[in-house]
């Protein structure tokens, strides 16, 4: 493995991903790092945020004392609405997801495999409480799936792998991965680096990825 390398912070990862979301997209942001994307949507774009518990047009967090405990996002945090918002029930919400009406689902990951397999709902550990929420619906229904994740675990184990060791959320579902070290497309040929932050080299990323990596950055 190559030497120490300083990649992006989680806010910087979210900002990098936000840059790639086209104006007018309908997007579901998963709990955790993906939620941060909402902070970095460029001013000149209108992105409609979907929360699977029943709202299109999610706005920012309420001012202290202004929130409603019955207006919450999938992470059960209080939110607000934007002009053009609409509420709906769960079956309608997942009709949007399953029916392919959302443009983009952004999720966290335990592991992503070179064939696009995603594992993010269960460590499969004995005694853990299994809990899946809407993750399997999202990855099987939404037009495109992006993953936001640290490139490696805290222990330094690569999260981008040849084959997932954790139980799958969905097979062959991931289109693109944003990490602290790279932007990586999942293609028919496996992982392809399409962008690197300043100070990170292709070899740095390859050394921290447990699957073959192609350099597909524009010349």
């Amino acid at each position, binding site marked *: 493995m190559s030497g120490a390398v300083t990649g992006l912070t989680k806010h910087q990862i979210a900002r990098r991903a936000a840059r790639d979301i086209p104006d007018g997209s309908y997007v579901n942001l998963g709990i955790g790092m993906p939620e941060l994307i909402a902070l970095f949507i460029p001013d000149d774009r209108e992105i409609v945020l979907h929360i699977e518990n029943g709202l299109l047009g999610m706005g920012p967090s309420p001012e202290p004392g202004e929130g409603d405990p019955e207006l919450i996002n999938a992470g059960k945090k209080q939110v607000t609405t934007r002009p053009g918002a*609409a*509420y*709906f029930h769960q079956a309608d919400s997942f009709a949007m997801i*399953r*029916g392919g*009406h959302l443009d983009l689902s952004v999720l966290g990951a335990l592991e992503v495999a070179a064939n696009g397999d995603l594992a993010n709902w269960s460590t499969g550990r004995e005694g853990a409480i299994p809990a899946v929420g809407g993750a399997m619906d999202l990855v099987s229904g939404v037009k495109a799936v992006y993953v936001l994740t640290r490139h490696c675990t805290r222990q330094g184990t690569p999260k981008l792998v040849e084959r997932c060791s954790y139980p799958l959320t969905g097979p062959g579902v991931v289109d693109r991965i944003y990490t602290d070290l790279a932007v990586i497309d999942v293609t028919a040929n496996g992982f392809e680096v399409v962008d690197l932050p300043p100070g990170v080299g292709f070899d740095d990323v390859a050394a921290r990825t447990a699957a073959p990596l192609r350099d597909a950055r524009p010349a």
Partner: protein
Amino acid sequence: MIDKRVGSPREAVAGIGDGDTVMIGGFGEAGSPIELIHALIDHGAGGLTVVSNNSGSGEVGLAALIRAGQVEKIVCSFPRSANSMVFPDLYHAGRIELELVPQGTLAERIRAGGAGIPAFYTPTAAGTDLEAGKERREFDGRMCLLERGLVADWALIKARVADWQGNLVYNKTARNFSPVMAMAGRTTVVQASSVIEPGGLDPEAVITPGIFVDHVVHVPKPHHESELVARGARYP
């Protein structure tokens, strides 16, 4: 910015191609997007498969589209009308195909298509002639039929109010098939009597969220089919 408004019915339907499947909202005249249908007649795309509960009345709207020879097949629950021979004449001449579907099964197939459900079982029509060619299976002691979700290249619908993002509310029983067709159309076009800025509709009362809508056309005073038929109008 999200602004789904287009200038005219003509522009809204310009992308419809020969052989496309087109869902058309309405139960009888209530909810029938007559100006969009007339624009489709002007546009001229042919060989269409139309999914609609009825087959039109008089010689305007859906009946006129059929008379124009643009419809190869209709998927429908009730293709009879007291005041139109357009569909019967073509049907008897073998020039239009009919897929007859019970009304509730039709609605559910459209919803399923829009909701990403490829197929479901229903007891409706089991034990009748309309089960012909369908897979049968018993659940909890009741015989059911396997029905497939329906999607379409286009959905043409009518609303009372739309905002620029495509959030919709309807008028009374004109709502009928429009919300599910909006879900099942790859491209959904709505004609609305009133078009307003986002924020003008109560988020609690939106019936069709804008995510299901692609083009919004302002048609301030839509024709009522029954009035056109009563005065013997023909389109074009």
